[in-house]
């Protein structure tokens, strides 16, 4: 693993950048193997066990732009670039054209570095990195790991800087890990939330949409619950004395708690219970209706099967 950076710069990453990168990757992946042909691919290659042994090792590239104020580097946006396979460098003319366009709209932003997808940085990336060094003396390299790992809790995004280290007597630039934080603007938060809750495009029925909506709320509440539990455990350990008291952290926790809505009042409990009971009554009513219709079916069938005197009605015996 690359050692951590010692430049002292703080990096702030906006979620828009991550969304852009992942969207870029997904689009290219779907274009390379559209779902219809992947079925036929599966039939044609029965030897390959799973359908995911397609060119996994393709990568997408692009540039990140932002602003640097003092020691803080804030990465706001990104755009895509094509990698020229012959020279193994990014398309320079396109980059400059895009940079001009962005400069008109966001005069404060300039190119901070580049991004790519993959699991780890490798040697060839250094060439691209060096090529960018004439635009920005110390570019950043944002790497997104597209492999989905459910066990992993953190974001699969790493930011690398380049530093000159003396290796075998020659000063060489190598990639070093830099820590970063996520920074959002209100508008960004809304749009990210919207993207996260995209429903299936065929609409589905009202039932599936409701189920999807409720599942989303359920997972959000579950995550909130687990995070609060972590905090609670931490505070408990601090109280017992296992962990040294950290006053700044305590202040942060206190401010967080004060910003949560007060949900312990008497009125809240009453209203909550009343609404809960109403919902229970509605589901009870639905169950009773269900039962009644089932009972009706059973009785109809029973009467048809075991009716002693069949009803002739107006039916004549001859056809």
């Amino acid at each position: 693993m690359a050692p951590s950076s010692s430049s002292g710069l703080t990096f702030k990453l906006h979620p828009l950048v991550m969304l852009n990168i992942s969207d870029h990757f997904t689009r290219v992946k779907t274009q390379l193997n559209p779902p219809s042909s992947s079925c036929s691919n599966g039939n044609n290659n029965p030897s390959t066990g799973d359908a995911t042994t397609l060119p996994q090792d393709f990568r997408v590239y692009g540039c990140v732009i932002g602003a640097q104020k003092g020691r803080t580097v804030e990465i706001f946006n990104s755009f895509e670039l094509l990698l020229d396979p012959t020279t193994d460098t990014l398309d320079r003319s396109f980059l400059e054209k895009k940079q001009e366009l962005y400069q008109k709209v966001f005069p404060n932003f300039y190119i901070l570095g580049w991004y790519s997808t993959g699991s780890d940085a490798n040697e060839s990336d250094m060439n691209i990195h060096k090529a960018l060094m004439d635009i920005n003396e110390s570019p950043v390299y944002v790497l997104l790991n597209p492999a989905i790992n459910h066990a992993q809790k953190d974001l699969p995004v790493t930011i690398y800087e380049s530093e000159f280290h003396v290796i075998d007597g020659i000063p060489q630039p190598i990639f070093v890990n830099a820590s970063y934080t996520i920074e959002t603007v209100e508008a960004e938060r809304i749009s990210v939330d919207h993207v996260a809750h995209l429903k299936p495009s065929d609409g589905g029925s009202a039932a599936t949409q409701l189920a999807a909506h409720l599942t989303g709320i359920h997972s959000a509440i579950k995550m909130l619950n687990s995070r609060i539990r972590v905090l609670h455990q931490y505070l408990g350990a601090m109280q017992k004395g296992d962990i040294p008291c950290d006053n700044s952290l305590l202040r942060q926790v206190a401010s967080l708690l004060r910003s949560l809505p007060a949900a312990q009042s008497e009125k809240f409990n009453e209203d909550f219970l009343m609404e809960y009971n109403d919902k229970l009554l509605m589901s009870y009513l639905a169950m009773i209706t269900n039962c009644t219709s089932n009972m009706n079916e059973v009785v109809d069938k029973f009467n048809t099967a075991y009716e002693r005197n069949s009803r002739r009605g107006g039916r004549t015996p001859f056809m």
Partner: protein
Amino acid sequence: MSSTENLITSIQGLSASSGDLSALHRILKGAEETLRADSDLQLSTLDQLDPSKHSLGYLYLLDVLTCGGPMSKEKASEVVLLIARFITSCDAEQIRLASDKFVSLCKGFKDRVLELEDPLRGVAPLLSAVRKVQVSTKRLTALHPDCLQLCLQAKCYKAGFSILSDDILEVDQPRDFYLYCYYGGMICIGQKKFQKALELLYNVVTAPMHSVNAIALEAYKKYVLVTLIHSGQFSVSLPKCASTAAQRHLKTWSIPYTEVGNCYNEGKISELQAVVVAHSSDFEKDNNLGLVKQAVSSLYKRNILRLTQKYLTLSLQDIANMVQLANAKEAEMHVLQMIQDGQIHALINQKDGMVRFLEDPEQYKTSEMIEVMDSVIQRTIMLSKNLIAMDESLSCDPLYLGKVGRERQRYDFGEDFDTVPQKFSM
């Protein structure tokens, strides 16, 4: 003697796995005759076997030993003890292989216990016997009514009530069902759970039957009285789903009860008491006198309940006058009792003797209500599942399919799709 010894060794040897057990069962069935003929067979030979491991063999030997005629009191109590111990420790799997033998053994046990006039000894073993013979909780066995009968005789109603809480869906013999519902109704009356008693007695009265039987008649009499106590209304006609035989004949055999019911509808206490006194010999013959007295006292309650629908406030003296009670003190006692039972909601102002009737204060927004609703919803879900299973089994019934096929053929002559065969050759 040697054949018995052989049998015992084979029992001991073959009681391990299910394959061995079926072989053992065949041997036992074959050897039953020789066992009966063997006069040297004693109760002491049973000591060689362990009831929990060798249940099947033990069952056969016990049956042969105890099915004899009348026996002396000591022998009877010894036998009873032995059977009780066997029932509590036997293995349910082995018993189910020979369930009718087990049932006849338990019936014999019950008779002996009744002869000894000590029904309490038989309650616990029969309870566990019922649980062991039952294949699933939805099935009624022949032991259910016997167990309930013992509970009634021993007056331990709570034990009997625990059996009644299962929902019965499958019945082998109709007579078991009638007896079960009748005894169950009586136990619920003893526990003062009139709602459940009403359900059970209703089941007996509306059960399909070709001709009126004695159980249904007794059940109808109690049913009339319990309706009076519980819901305060009486209708002469039976519910529509009762069989035609019941509808025609039940009423002619229970005339005193219908008179009581009609009088109750009028609402006059004195007339009701006169009718009760007139027919008291009939009631005593049927052992229903206590129930009739409860019905009379419930008339007061019904009248007070009707008052709550007409008046908002009433003085105690007025209540006493309208309900024909002796004085205001008795009226206050009645009203207090009803408030405690939860039948009405009222406030008694003792200073000026006024009673103010209130609405039901239940707002359905407490957490206890949540538990009640949750359990009710669960029960409905179970019921729905059972109904769907019944529906499926009915759809595969050949009688049903034959009738449906016949009707369809009549409807679409002219179109030859889907000709369902009229008869299924099975």
